[in-house]
């Protein structure tokens, strides 16, 4: 971690000293210092913290038109209940079918793993309450999510916006990471024309997602798109992928992968280039193959960066809305709707309380995923170097 910074011409590592107050006019200077921070803090408090509380209140109410205006009726947790057990359930969670036998096996395996994970926390010499509670919460939440996810994936079930979003996030990040890592390794070699590849590979990340969504709509058009001859040869020209939930979801994921692989690529390549050459040369002299040099030397060195890019993408990927909204309009039915899109559609139909409830579920899932990731994975990986 520090090595990279030193190569970049970094200053002294370790805690940075504070600037001392100048002797004259200490009081004035003290106030001036507050002015550096205050505008940013106030802005965040007024436009981010307060709205968050108001949203919480809205999620507990129902919006109603009354003569001369509107009113908010307090309905308690009804909006949340509606999503989990009421009329919005199929939209939010999806249709739940009985578990297929193969999924029983998967679930049993994972559940055992989670149980072992909790028990091992209790077996440590002096278990801290925080760690144990944290692990139990993690096991319960992720176990429940997996249980429902598997039921929606069983034939007869179908995933709602919650699980669609989770699928987008996990599949997207996994593919983007490995693809980005491979490209980053290849482009970090001494090859003529590296700069060309670097610039070209960066492009998709900068392009407006709405533009990407339309572009992919054109490309995926089986009758008129550029790949139409292929589809015709396969006898698929008259079929529209939009009619198939998984086809439409795949289209959204392909667009997302196309757009965000560059982010992984750029950061991982910069990290690979800052791996000290001496380490690699030493491995080379010892007769290591390229494969070994990458997996035994370079990859462990870039693990902290790896972990951070995954964390960043994890946080950002949950916010996906542009692609499904423009590419498929959330369809067929609600098959490609992400949570943000779900909230937007509820808002547009004036179900403001329901929209806020969906947004709060999203906030909960993002926070849960990010904190679990940080405490279970990130902390360990960031300390390896």
């Amino acid at each position, binding site marked *: 971690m520090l090595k990279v910074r030193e190569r970049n011409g970094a200053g002294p590592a370790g805690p940075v000293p504070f600037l001392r107050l*100048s002797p004259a006019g200490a009081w004035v*200077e003290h106030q001036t210092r507050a002015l550096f921070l205050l505008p940013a803090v106030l802005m965040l408090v007024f*436009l981010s913290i307060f*709205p968050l509380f108001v949203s919480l209140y809205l999620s507990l109410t129902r919006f109603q038109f009354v003569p001369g205006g509107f009113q908010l009726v307090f309905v308690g947790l009804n909006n949340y209940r509606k999503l989990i057990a009421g009329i919005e359930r199929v939209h939010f969670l999806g249709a739940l079918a009985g578990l297929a036998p193969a999924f029983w096996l998967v679930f049993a395996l994972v559940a055992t793993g989670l149980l072992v994970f909790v028990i091992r926390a209790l077996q440590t010499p002096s278990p801290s309450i925080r760690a144990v509670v944290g692990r139990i919460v993690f096991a319960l939440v992720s176990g429940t999510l997996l249980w429902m996810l598997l039921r929606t994936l069983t034939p007869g079930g179908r995933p709602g916006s919650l699980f669609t979003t989770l699928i987008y996030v996990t599949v997207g990040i996994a593919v983007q990471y490995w693809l980005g890592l491979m490209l980053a390794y290849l482009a970090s070699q001494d090859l003529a024309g590296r700069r060309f590849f670097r610039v070209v590979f960066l492009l998709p990340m900068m392009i407006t997602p709405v533009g990407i969504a*339309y572009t992919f709509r054109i490309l995926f058009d089986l009758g008129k798109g550029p790949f139409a001859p292929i589809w015709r040869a396969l006898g698929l020209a008259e079929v529209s992928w939009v009619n198939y939930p998984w086809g439409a979801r795949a289209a959204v994921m392909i667009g997302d992968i196309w757009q965000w692989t560059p982010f992984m690529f750029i950061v991982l390549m910069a990290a690979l280039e800052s791996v000290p050459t001496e380490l690699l040369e030493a*491995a080379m*002299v010892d007769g290591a193959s390229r494969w070994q040099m990458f997996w035994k030397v370079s990859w462990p060195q870039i693990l902290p960066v790896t972990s951070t890019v995954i964390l960043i993408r994890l946080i950002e990927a949950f916010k996906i809305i542009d692609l499904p909204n*423009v590419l498929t309009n959330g369809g067929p039915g609600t098959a490609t709707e992400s949570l943000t899109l779900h909230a937007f559609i509820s808002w547009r139909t004036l179900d403001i309380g329901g929209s806020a409830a969906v947004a709060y579920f999203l906030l909960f899932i993002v926070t849960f995923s990010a904190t679990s990731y940080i405490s279970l994975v990130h902390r360990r990986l960031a300390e390896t170097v």
Partner: protein
Amino acid sequence: MQNALPLRQLRFARRTSPHAPSWPGAVLSYLVLGFWAVVVLFPLFWIFVTSFKLPIAVNDGPFYLPFIDFPPSGHAWRYIFVDLRNDTLRPFINTVIVAISSSVLALALGTAAAYGLLRFPYRPRLGVILLFLALAVLTVVATRLFVPWQAGVAAAVVLFLLLRQYAGARSHRAFGNDDIAFWMISQRILPPVAIVIPIYVMFQRLHLLDTQLALIITYTTVNLPIVVWLMRDYFRQISIELEESAAIDGASPFRIFLSIVLPLSTPGLVATFLLVLVFSWNEYLLALFLTSANAQTLPLSIAAQNATRGPQWWYMSVLILIMITPVIAVAIALERYIARGLLVGAIKG
């Protein structure tokens, strides 16, 4: 055993750099990299080609090369730029104004905060924060019930100034710079959809809905955490001695910040500015909620095309090209800065 490597092989190993691939490796690398370059460039090529097609050239199945497969036509460009001039220009100008102003604002507020967090110790007391929140809630409640809002705000400010010392002295818990920085950066976790409805209501009350100002304020807030995060790491690399000697000579913090720190960190500023600019340029969700016609930005006006006229790929392609050309130019010109800026952020997490 380890030293039993034949001399020739050892010399060979020493001479090659560890980054140089063997020749089959190089061929394979070029194949994979070339493949991905095609994957990246083909959609852009297709958009470009489609923008020069007549409807018939789109509908009769795929034609790939202008002049060879189909006769190119400028009809879509003429339609967008001449017939629809104002409808195209307005969203474009909106986007330019909103993206640039919000990025400048976010950069100004964010760099100041990042610098302050790095160089000055802040110890906000828990009591003062609670007092602030309580007064804010009280003000909102009071103005909704009976008090005119000017009086409510004035009373709250006076009360806050009076009670500040007292609340600070009473509570012993205080937060440090790292807590503040963590709080600011973690705002990034917040999905925008969770805060957009109250923001919508607020701008509606202020009669700012569907104005550029509303978007500028919102985008600035959303981008602040990124600026604080990246610039804090950038400032960390600047050595403190210059600033210390300037402080001893009696320069004010603002003077030091403006004439020493900012000039020293120009590359970081440029990278952060561009990143934030691109984010604002591309933003979709908040604009979707907060604008309807007047302040509509490009992503929205493109998204609206489909609803009004059905998929008319030729016009759509022109609009997409208008929207993405500036960001592509930015990407090509400043690839180095962007890569470095992202890496600095990613390493310090």
